[in-house]
């Protein structure tokens, strides 16, 4: 039999038509392969503390899921890349995860600088991404329909601080202080504008160089202006500790309210005496704050009992660990309910998520809102009360 060119063409066309008319069977491999979660973690370098805490939760959650038989029989595999807090390394790791490792979802990065660098890349790759970064612009369902936030945004932090300052601390004359970093300047400006909009009088606003050795000038000006509370937007523990020491030297008992750094353990080593850390209220989270009887909400009391002896909470924060657990569980939940680990399926399931009871917060997303953390779960903590990575609720919460 001789094969003509026309015969070959017709035969090829026939084969192609036959293959299109019968749906391709899903390869068995996809049903049994592990659910691969890429984990972009700044595990070393200057901003590694949060990622180290998140990582403990991530590994714990993956182990727990796998010990229970996985997700519909599929194991969860965490593929970690240490970005060292460097946006360039985060970009390279993201490319690798999308193109070579072919992960099903990415958790992280854990700081906004890295996230700003990789968000667009993940959007182009339609990669389901969940992260805890606070910069507002990182979440935009139109531009980045694949990106979901699992922690509060800057605006949500600001809302919570303002609500506590005005409604619980009952301060009407407020001083707003940031450091001279881009974050400090923008956060202080936004905070002052929102306070004024809500009827407060911003009697003093300043951006202080974090290395300024003496805080007396700014504290004196704030006191002379009649400030009843000082709202702080800075990650500089040195600056905050100097301000607290100066407040004590001045014999002034004005409350400090603001950024979570107010509760950083570093401040405890820098203040002249423990009393200088009183009346300082840092952003905290309801599920990770204990009440007057020393108890966390029941769900997290139970988590704490399970973590005891397995995860060290002495040198980290419970919310970091809880958030890491929730991130892995949210991916697993999407695969379980959607029955698939394709990008489209995971994103569709997250868009439909309502009041998912996590350990860090109760998350809800929709197609138009990817800020899933409820502002009602943000509370103020008494900054000096750190215990097992948790804090006491600030006074004023029923």
């Amino acid at each position, binding site marked *: 039999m001789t094969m003509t060119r026309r015969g070959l063409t017709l035969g090829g066309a026939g084969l192609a038509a036959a293959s299109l008319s019968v749906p391709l069977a899903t390869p068995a491999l996809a049903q049994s392969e592990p659910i691969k979660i890429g984990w972009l973690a700044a595990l070393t370098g200057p901003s590694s503390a949060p990622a180290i805490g998140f990582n403990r939760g991530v590994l714990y959650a993956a182990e727990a899921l796998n010990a229970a038989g996985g997700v519909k029989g599929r194991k969860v595999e965490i593929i970690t890349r240490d970005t060292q807090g460097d946006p360039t390394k985060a970009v390279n790791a993201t490319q690798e995860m999308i193109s070579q490792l072919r992960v099903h979802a990415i958790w992280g990065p854990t700081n906004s600088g890295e996230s700003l660098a990789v968000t667009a890349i993940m959007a182009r790759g339609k990669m389901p991404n969940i992260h805890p970064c606070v910069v507002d612009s990182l979440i935009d369902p139109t531009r980045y329909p694949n990106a979901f936030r699992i922690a509060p945004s800057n605006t949500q932090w600001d809302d919570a601080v303002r609500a506590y300052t005005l409604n619980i601390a009952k301060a009407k004359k407020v001083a707003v202080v940031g450091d001279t970093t881009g974050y400090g300047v923008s956060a202080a400006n936004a905070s002052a504008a929102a306070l004024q909009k809500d009827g407060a009088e911003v009697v003093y606003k*300043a951006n*202080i160089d974090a*290395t300024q*050795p*003496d805080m007396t000038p700014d504290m004196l000006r704030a006191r002379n202006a009649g400030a009843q509370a000082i709202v702080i937007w800075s990650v500089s*523990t040195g600056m905050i500790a100097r301000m607290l020491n100066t407040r004590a030297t001045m014999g002034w008992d004005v409350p400090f309210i603001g950024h979570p750094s107010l509760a950083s353990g*570093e401040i405890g080593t820098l203040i002249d005496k423990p009393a200088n850390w009183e009346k300082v209220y840092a952003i905290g989270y309801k599920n990770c704050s204990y009440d007057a009887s020393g108890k966390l909400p029941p769900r997290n009391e139970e988590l704490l009992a399970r973590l005891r002896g397995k995860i060290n909470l002495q040198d980290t924060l419970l919310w970091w660990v809880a958030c890491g657990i929730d991130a892995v569980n949210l991916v697993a939940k999407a695969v379980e309910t959607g029955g698939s680990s394709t990008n489209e399926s995971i994103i569709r399931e997250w868009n439909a998520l309502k009041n998912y009871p996590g350990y860090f917060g109760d998350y809800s997303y929709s197609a138009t809102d990817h800020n899933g953390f409820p502002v009602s779960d943000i509370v103020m903590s008494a900054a000096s009360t750190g215990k097992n990575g948790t804090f006491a609720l600030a006074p004023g919460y029923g």
Partner: protein
Amino acid sequence: MLASILASGLAVGAVYALIGITYNTMYSTSRVMSFTAGQLGMLGGVFGSLFMLRLGVPLVPALLLTMAACALVGVITEFIAVRPVLKSLDQHLYVLSTLAVALLIQHLTALEWSTEPQPFPRLLAMGSGVWDEKYWLPVAACAVTIIGLEYLYRHTLVGRAFVAIAEDNFAARALGLPERNLRIASYAMAGAVGALAGFSGGQLLLAFFANGPLLNFYGFIPVALGGLGNNRGAVIGGILLGLFQQAANFTVGGIFSSVAVFTLFIIVLLLRPQGMFGMPTARRV
């Protein structure tokens, strides 16, 4: 308020002055402006905190160890960043080499020490309010240093050899002075002075890796104001700078005070390019 301005102004001014002296000491024997001066001050605070708080060394041995460690850093600087570029001073390669070493020191400190400010111990537990030791210790350290240097330069053979090298390098060498050894010694001495700045000002500045660039900038101003190589000028320039900066802090606020400081600096240099106490250099024709 005046008392606070005077106390903190004199204190930070004294620290700036000591960093200015560090610049001058290195410059005098090498004609190199070494931008490691601020890092030596930063290391004074870090080593002080390391020896006293982490290792539990008592005050006097801790101070001596800190000065020795910074002197060693000074000597290393001379070997790797100064000596190789001495033959081409007119190309100002030392700017690059000393800045590179300064960055190296800063990054190593960040990696091995901490990126967060660390506490510095109370040294003598004396005084409170504006008389707190954190305000007067840098002033006392500055006074001791300037008196010690004056004594060294005027009344000792080694000191006179330093002056001779500073005055005329070639003539000093022709007289048989060991120019290279004296230069190494001057870098060790600069390290010790920088260490004293950071150690005495540690309670104000804390043990923080980011203090290096700050001290580099603000320590350079007294040198420019007081005249290059003029220690007395650096002390007066440093104290005036500290007082002016703190007065500006109290009156116009932190960010604007930096603007005020640099505006004044530029005005002074426009009026007296050789510095307030420097002499115009005569050029042979």
